[in-house]
């Protein structure tokens, strides 16, 4: 077990006993991934915020039911996605296939603390990549967000999305084929550099 995993298990254990500071650290570790996953399917930012908040509050309430402390990473994303699906049903505002506004994507992609000199190139690269991902169909966007951007293994992606592994791999293949076409030039630059 890595130090990171051991620390995570310790944080989960402490949070289960009522340690809100430990839960804050879990929040800091996972809010980026949870937020990106929900944002991959919803355009309404207020609703994204609501779902992420509800996910962490529910995680706090149900932490006692989590049997494997090491599984928090997958569990919190599962929880968030289920809440999102419920909220969509409630509010009847399914937007899974809608594209993000380009301007919004640009804002999201801006590095808040860019390195001097390299700032423009890095932020433009990130913006282009996130723009390309945002242009994928919703199911492919979720898989790419979880696996590539958030670093979740494909088996765990299948758990989060509650679909067979084969479905994850086929969505991944289609998404990559599209991204290859959209970002081909950028990758060649990277490979040559």
């Amino acid at each position: 077990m890595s130090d990171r995993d051991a620390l995570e298990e310790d944080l989960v254990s402490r949070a289960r006993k009522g340690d809100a500071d430990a839960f804050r650290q879990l929040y800091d570790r996972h809010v980026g991934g949870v937020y990106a996953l929900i944002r991959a399917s919803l355009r309404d930012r207020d609703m994204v915020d609501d779902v992420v908040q509800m996910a962490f509050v529910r995680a706090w309430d149900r932490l006692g039911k989590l049997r494997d402390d090491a599984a928090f990473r997958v569990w919190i994303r599962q929880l968030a996605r289920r809440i999102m699906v419920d909220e969509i049903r409630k509010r009847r505002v399914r937007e899974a296939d809608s594209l993000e506004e380009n301007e919004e994507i640009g804002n999201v992609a801006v590095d808040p603390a860019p390195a001097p000199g390299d700032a423009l190139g890095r932020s433009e690269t990130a913006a282009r990549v996130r723009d390309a991902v945002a242009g994928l169909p919703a199911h492919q966007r979720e898989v790419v967000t979880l696996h590539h951007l958030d670093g979740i293994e494909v088996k765990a992606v299948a758990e989060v999305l509650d679909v067979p592994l084969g479905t994850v791999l086929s969505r991944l293949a289609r998404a990559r084929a599209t991204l290859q076409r959209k970002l081909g030039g950028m990758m060649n630059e990277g490979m040559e550099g």
Partner: protein
Amino acid sequence: MSAMTCDEARKRILELPAGEAPEDLASHLEQCADCARAYESQRALDGLLRAVGTPPVEADLWPAIRSQLRPRRLTWPWVLAPVAGVAAGIGLALLFASPTVAPTSGPAPLAAVAMAAPAEHGADDLDEDAQIIAWHARAAAGTGLFDPSSMAITLISLTQGGSELN
């Protein structure tokens, strides 16, 4: 086993999880320059996506989340176990005792049950609660009289109490 075709290799490359070594593809990639290029291109895309990572979260959601975190309470099984023990003791006492509870020289069933509670459960956070129950039990054993109203109030206060958040 037949050799892998280029179509099969391309499908496998696209499905290959990021960071996984393509052991089953190795021999094909050694012999096919086009598929080898496709593989390298795929690795480059994977690296680019990983480097970009998840977008920053724009809003600080923690204050709103923190305000909704409920304090942890004693879980019901832990609370109910001593209560159930005391109730069982009372039931046994009523079953075997005469209509008027007489003083006894040894500990009453209630006292025995209540005083055993902390050792049975071994929970640090229940020590104080168990001591209060034991106090009632000792009082009942010493006087031969049991004060059900006082005991009930104590039990209710215990079940409604909970530890505060850190």
